[in-house]
């Protein structure tokens, strides 16, 4: 099943670009990019705007990276034996523990929005990659009809805004991160723009 809904072609360009940004973050935070992905990322360029520069840095980081190197980096950051350096789950950032009320709240909203966890995924749903994927799906209508801005804003403010900026800042500042430092910068700036844009919405 495609994560892009059929109604996506009717969306304004900027909304499609938002969904793509969430999709990119979801992909990079789910798994380390392989050789093909690094090649695709290496083509990214940008201007000196906030996100343009962040994308440009990601492209530059991809040009410097090797598949083995990013795999090791991903492992050290997120997997590790006994836990990686960072624990990218909403419950953990918000309460200090996994599987807490933020996760229960999220599951309630997922059920209401018609979002179901995919088979074969053991990590709880409040993982940053899953949340980014959910936002992309809400924008494009992958789960149901495209969510209107009010619904998107509610989801963002309940499940993402309270902690994701801090997570991305931690990623950006991690001594272990090299390629993923650029992912942190992009994520942090994108969260900032998302918050500003939602504040504009009717």
């Amino acid at each position: 099943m495609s994560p892009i809904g059929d109604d996506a072609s009717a969306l304004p360009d900027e909304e499609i670009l938002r969904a793509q940004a969430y999709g990119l973050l979801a992909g990079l935070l789910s798994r380390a990019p392989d050789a093909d992905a690094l090649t695709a990322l290496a083509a990214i360029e940008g201007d000196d705007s906030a996100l343009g520069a962040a994308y440009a840095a990601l492209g530059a980081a991809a040009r410097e990276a090797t598949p083995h190197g990013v795999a090791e980096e991903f492992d050290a950051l997120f997997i590790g034996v006994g836990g990686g350096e960072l624990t990218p789950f909403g419950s953990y950032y918000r309460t200090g523990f996994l599987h807490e009320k933020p996760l229960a709240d999220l599951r309630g909203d997922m059920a209401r929005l018609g979002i179901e966890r995919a088979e074969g995924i053991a990590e709880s749903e409040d993982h940053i990659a899953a949340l980014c994927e959910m936002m992309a799906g809400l924008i494009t209508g992958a789960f149901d009809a495209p969510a209107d801005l009010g619904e998107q804003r509610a989801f963002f403010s309940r499940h993402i805004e309270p902690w994701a900026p801090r997570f991305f800042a931690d990623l950006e500042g991690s001594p272990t991160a090299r390629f993923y430092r650029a992912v942190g910068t992009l994520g942090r700036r994108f969260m900032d723009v998302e918050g500003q844009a939602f504040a504009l919405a009717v």
Partner: protein
Amino acid sequence: MTDKKGKATLARRDLFRAAGLGAGALGAVAVGLPAAPAEAKAGDDRTAQRYRETEHVRKAYESSRF
């Protein structure tokens, strides 16, 4: 007569454009779509903890191999 929603849409577009959102579209399209997306389908949300060979578990086994 002001179209409030239309103005909001324009304001969003201007904000995203100024922020440079379009810069990453090339790489995002190539890389961004996850391999195993969450699917919209009827059915129970699995709540029982079952063993899954996740990346985490596999690496734990690898590192403890003699």
